[in-house]
């Protein structure tokens, strides 16, 4: 039985990969761009999930993406650094910032942590806004170019899509491995039974900080990926508005499994684009659908599949409690 389930998963993965490879060739130009930003946002929500594994929800993740993006932008603008260097360094800068912020932030938990993370994020974002040198102030920085290798110009959407897809898949694989490693299990344990975990010698502060640093590292890479394609960076790209979108993607998608946030970002991005024709009514329609979705699917879109299995009598509803 296990072999069949595994085989089914591998086949599904192969079909998904094949679909992702051929997809851009069937899309119009501006949908190719949308696909690139969607792929980057998949990494954003996947990395955010690592932070939420310990039960802490932060409001600084968008700013951490900005730390990575600004690092890449400044390295490119000042040192003409190639993207292959800026990507890991962007992740490193975001991770380092997270490590430093861990000391004050993880003295708080729950709601206080949420507010503290928002305040810390705004302090960073306002610094970018306040200093025209070196950050460009509110107007930000522009002219950050993607690489050109031989005849492949990564300014074109299809080559850049494959580049982004490759980087994001590697990152997702690492994040998946982390979640299913001993570290991941410990993070889950802290979420569901923190006092019990502490009683058996788990340093919960250290693990919470580690989750925050890992999440920030990967979202920093996502920031660099995005900015090398956009070519322009401004502080507003990483404001509370974008952070709210991250939260919506994760909440609507569900956060019990790694698939939930990914489903959330994909479905909501496609939905947002599909209602573009409604013009000024679009935000209202989007908001209405969110409310309906939260009311009728409180455990997120990821809970639909187990529900269907339960209705068909071939599975049990496993989305109500903690993961095994």
């Amino acid at each position, binding site marked *: 039985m296990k072999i069949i389930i595994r085989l089914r998963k591998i086949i599904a993965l192969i079909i998904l990969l094949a679909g992702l490879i051929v997809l851009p060739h069937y899309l119009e*130009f*501006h949908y190719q761009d949308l696909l690139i930003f969607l792929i980057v946002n998949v990494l954003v929500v996947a990395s955010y999930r690592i932070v939420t594994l310990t039960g802490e929800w932060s409001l600084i993740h968008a700013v951490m993406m900005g730390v990575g993006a600004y690092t890449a932008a400044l390295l490119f603008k000042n040192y003409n650094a190639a993207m292959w260097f800026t990507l890991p360094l962007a992740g490193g800068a975001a991770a380092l910032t997270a490590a430093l912020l861990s000391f004050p932030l993880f003295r708080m938990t729950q709601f206080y942590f949420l507010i503290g993370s928002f305040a810390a994020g705004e302090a960073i974002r306002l610094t970018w806004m306040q200093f*025209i*040198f070196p950050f460009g*102030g509110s107007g930000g920085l*522009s002219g950050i170019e993607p690489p050109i290798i031989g005849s492949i110009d990564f300014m074109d959407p299809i080559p850049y899509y494959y580049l982004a897809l490759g980087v994001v898949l590697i990152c997702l694989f690492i994040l998946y491995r982390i979640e299913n490693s001993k570290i991941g299990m410990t993070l889950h344990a802290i979420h569901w039974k923190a006092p019990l975990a502490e009683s058996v010698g788990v340093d919960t502060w250290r693990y919470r900080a580690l989750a925050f640093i890992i999440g920030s590292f990967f979202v920093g890479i996502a920031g660099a990926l995005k900015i090398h394609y956009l070519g322009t960076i401004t502080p507003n790209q990483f404001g509370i508005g974008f952070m709210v979108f991250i939260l919506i993607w994760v909440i609507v998608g569900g956060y019990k499994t790694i698939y939930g946030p990914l489903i959330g970002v994909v479905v909501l991005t496609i939905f947002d684009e599909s209602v573009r024709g409604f013009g000024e009514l679009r935000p209202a329609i989007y908001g209405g659908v969110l409310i309906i979705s939260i009311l009728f699917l409180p455990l997120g879109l990821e809970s639909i599949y187990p529900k269907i299995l339960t209705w068909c009598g071939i599975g049990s509803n496993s989305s109500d409690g903690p993961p095994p």
Partner: protein
Amino acid sequence: MKITRRDFLKKTATGVVLAGVATGLPVNVFANEKTVKIGMNIPMTGDYAPWGLPGLYGCEIIADDINAAGGVKIGNTNYKIEMVSFDHAYDTEKTIQGYKKLVLEDDVKMVMMLGGSTVSSILPWAQRKKMLTTTLLPSDITPKSEYVIATCESHPLYNVTGVEWLAENFPEAKTAVIVTNNDVEWGLQSASTYKAAFEVAGIKVVDVNLHGFDVTDFAPIVSSVLAKKPDIFCMATSFYTTPLMEQLYHQGYKGKIISCTLDYYNEIIAKTSKEFVNGTIFQFPDFDDPALLQEGIHFPDPNGFDAKFRKNHPNDWSAVAWEYPAILLNWIEGAKAAGSVEPTEVLKALKSNKKPNFVFGGGRWWGSELWGLDNAIVGRWPVVVIEDGKARIKEFRSLTDWLDKNNDILKKNMKALGLRTV
């Protein structure tokens, strides 16, 4: 009834001829008629929507009028105009998507944009596709942005005309304070321009408060600057004119007020009083103003346009309502001169005209002294004052004359606030 072979052939032949006439006539009549698409990549939702959506409404009015009159003749072809819009909500990601959709999929011949970081994000594509792109913020122009032009609004340079008028008409006003948001695209550009204008006019700036977008309570800001007892309160290009005006009203300010914009001034009057708002100086007229009927104004039937706009969209009039249409009119002028709708041809024709039609007249290409490229049209600009609760043009003043005399002072003040100049 028996149909003979002769009858059948006769009737069939008649039918074929009639069908040929019916289908052939329009083909012959409209053989040289085409549709040209003009793109608008603007914010239509979100915080910046008031500086995007009214512009689309305005352009649709102009395009409908032109189309109803039979279109516009460019070269040997008669063109109907179709506006194609994309809502980028002032988001750089969506801006790039929108730009590519308009240019590569919709085949528009010009893209109108608001300006700022959204224009920076599409610059590489404008260059690569040689696409004529317009902005309302000429500070977007760089030495390398040859396809980006600003043919209507030369924000914030025209603010100097308001200060000049104020200094001449109220010589007793000798001190000023400036309060505005600290963003690079609007606030700082405007604050530095006002500082330069005050310096030229011999008015001393006693305080400058550049606040962030996070401010929700303007009482302490207004209190602190009013403590300097200024004769003039300058809001530069503030996103917060309404709360600032409310605070000035509640704190009993009696001096002169000057601002770049005063969008939705009726709301300000409703929140304060007509008497308080009367006398406020700004730069954006309503288009029902009789002063716009005088010679030298390059905008067809401005009063009729205003009436039509307010009838169709009663609560949406803002400064951009006539600015994007004015840019559209510039494009038509360029396309007619070029005899072509192709972006590079239109740009070439527009740039080769040393005295281009400018909405308020007296236009000329300018910009290399400040941004490295003569890609902005500057000319006369109106000084507008609220009188009896209504915006009224007091005078048109020459921006070009001021720039010719005082460009160095302007540059000095821009550099002092860390802004880019050549």
